[in-house]
């Protein structure tokens, strides 16, 4: 039985209509942002320039796609329908009557659904890994920049050590199936995931040292929530079974954090060295504030502009890294729908079929482009002040 096709125009229409929850959510969020942009500080200023609007739009688009993936995608990203092997875009799956909008890949899976589900993987791992890298980089970069001297020499040497590794070599060494048999990834996870807990504990401690009523509550929340997530992620021992991460995803996560935290460290260190010469820091020192209070409550808030911009760029860069990992088949499961793996699978067969290659490439490119545009317009806005 030959597979029936729908026309190219209908494909476009149907793709647009499948994204209906995204359009509605986008409309609500963008509309609200426009209406209240005066009150939204830096975020509101983004809506003053075309570049900013496009950047926010693209990022939100993928965010909502990831959230509503189950509604948008017509098929299960892993389901194989043998008759649909390598079909061109617009082929109708005979049993359900639904369409393979972007065609089928060599394992007869729906390319469209895989692209939509792939956004989930990227949008969970990339921002989370960037967040952890920021925590690690900030917690180490602050003292290195503030104290200077020996501590700076040692930490900078370590950071340069990691930065001197070509990323790809690092991944080939750190993200292999074999390494999961050794305690290395877990040890690294154990170290990295401690940093957020340390960061927030010190943050609250320095601020509310003299106000025990606040301090104990905040510290308690930090330690309980932090410890809970820590137990779940590192030891996979979450008592409630909510926080859970696959061993190979943990491996990727750790490797990505490891690769990008030295970059954050360098930026934070540079910013701190610049900011610590300001008058308000001298004033705080004269008041007798503790060094960590000055670092966390005087210097860090004033370094936020460049850090936010860097975080945006870094999420994009992490997305590219994840794609690289997928492209080399490192870490992620071979049937995983993430964009890098999809590009790898499709690029081997470019000579015969090009349609499975284009959706994931364009998805990845547009998401990174959105983040870069966002970062660019954030930079421009923060320079105006």
């Amino acid at each position: 039985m030959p597979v029936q096709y729908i026309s190219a125009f209908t494909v476009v229409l149907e793709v647009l209509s499948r994204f209906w929850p995204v359009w509605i959510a986008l409309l609500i969020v963008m509309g609200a942002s426009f209406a209240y942009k005066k009150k939204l500080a830096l975020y509101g200023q983004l809506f003053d320039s075309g570049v900013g609007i496009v950047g926010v739009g693209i990022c939100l688009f993928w965010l909502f796609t990831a959230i509503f993936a189950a509604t948008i995608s017509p098929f299960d990203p892993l389901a194989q329908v043998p008759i649909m092997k390598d079909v061109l875009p617009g082929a109708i799956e005979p049993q359900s009557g639904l369409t393979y909008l972007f065609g089928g890949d060599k394992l007869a899976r729906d390319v469209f659904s895989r692209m939509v589900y792939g956004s989930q993987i990227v949008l969970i791992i990339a921002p989370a890994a960037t967040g952890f890298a920021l925590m690690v980089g900030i917690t180490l970069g602050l003292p290195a920049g503030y104290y200077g001297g020996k501590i700076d020499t040692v930490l900078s040497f370590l950071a340069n050590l990691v930065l001197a590794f070509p990323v790809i070599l690092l991944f080939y060494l750190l993200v292999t199936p074999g390494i999961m048999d050794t305690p290395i990834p877990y040890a690294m996870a154990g170290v990295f995931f401690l940093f957020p807990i340390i960061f927030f504990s010190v943050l609250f401690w320095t601020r509310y040292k003299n106000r025990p009523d606040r301090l104990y509550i905040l510290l308690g929340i930090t330690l309980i929530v932090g410890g809970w997530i820590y137990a779940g992620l590192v030891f996979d021992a979450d008592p409630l079974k909510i926080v859970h991460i696959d061993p190979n995803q943990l491996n990727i996560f750790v490797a990505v954090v490891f690769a990008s935290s030295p970059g954050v460290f360098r930026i934070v260190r540079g910013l701190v060295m610049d900011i610590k010469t300001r008058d308000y820091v001298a004033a705080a020192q004269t008041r007798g504030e503790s060094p960590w209070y000055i670092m966390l409550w005087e210097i860090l808030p004033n370094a936020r502009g460049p850090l936010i911009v860097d975080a945006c760029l870094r999420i994009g860069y992490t997305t590219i890294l994840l794609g690289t990992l997928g492209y080399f088949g490192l870490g992620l499961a071979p049937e995983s729908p993430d964009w890098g793996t999809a590009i790898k699978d499709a690029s081997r067969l470019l000579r015969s079929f090009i349609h499975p290659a284009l959706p994931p490439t364009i998805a990845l490119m547009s998401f990174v482009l959105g983040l870069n545009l966002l970062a660019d317009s954030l930079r421009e806005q923060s320079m105006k002040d």
Partner: protein
Amino acid sequence: MLSFVIRRLGTMALTMLCLTMIVFFLINLEPNLKKLAISQTEMHTSAEQLESWLVNHGYRQNFFVRYAQWLGVVPKQPVTDPATGKPAQRFSFCNDPVVPTFAGVLEGDFGCSTKFKASVASKLFPALGATGTLMLCVLAVMVPISLLIGILAGMREGSRTDRVLSVASIASTATPEYVSGVIFTVIFASWLGWLNGSAASASQGITFYNFTLPVMTLAIYGIGYIARMTRASMVEVMTQQYIRTARLKGLSFGSVVVKHALRNALIAPFTVIMLQFPWLLTGVVIVEVMFRYQGFGYTLVEAAGNNDIDLLLGCSLVSVFIVLITQLISDVGYAFLNPRIRVQ
């Protein structure tokens, strides 16, 4: 200046020592050794045979002894042939010595590739040569284009040219090699049929037909980045007092840009181009795998995929060396180009 360079070289040596030790440690993890033993012995070998293969080939010696042997500060011992009890070559395919000798990296011996059954040097250096050709082509394309884009964009900040070129360069930094490679192959090889989607034949002879796609793919990611840096530097220079003075003196805009602004605006991009090498290295790996070009990146992937210890160590040594030496060149060159930052 000289003492600065010497100090930097010292740090570099220390960094390389640390890095190679880390790489050595990670490659020699138990699961990796197991995998190597399995791939090097025949099918269906028992655990004892695997173990004895590892012992026989010297993989069970103390970690630091083996690292020192690889480095060349401790003599390499020949293995004992289990059948005869006499000393024998460790790997027959690359002339390993039968008497204890210093044969490490410091002596110029990179060891033995178990995957290619040849000495590492005979695999690594031709591959490096091939990648060098690729890199040269990429730089020859990337540097002029990106500088031109950056200068044109930064010349008049906020103009329409600036906006268009800036968005274009942002778009190019958002396109990693595996994305642009696929898109270019689809457009130029599948649809138009102008170029070859594989550079495998480029090892025999480079032609426009088989080499353009890899060069284009590699260049596009760097172009955006260098162009953005050039633009930022150009914008900064164009707001300086001496530019205004030159304009007020009545010089034409073109001559101000070429004679006064360019020289100062190009200092920062020089550093950026130098620091671009580590990024290019990752790109090289992707592009060489994607277009099947037998260069350094291809060798690295083969070595890593097959757990070829000595070859992978050689590859990492080379790549780390490239990263560090470009950092050094960029620092020294920056000091030379910018008289205000001459090192004391």
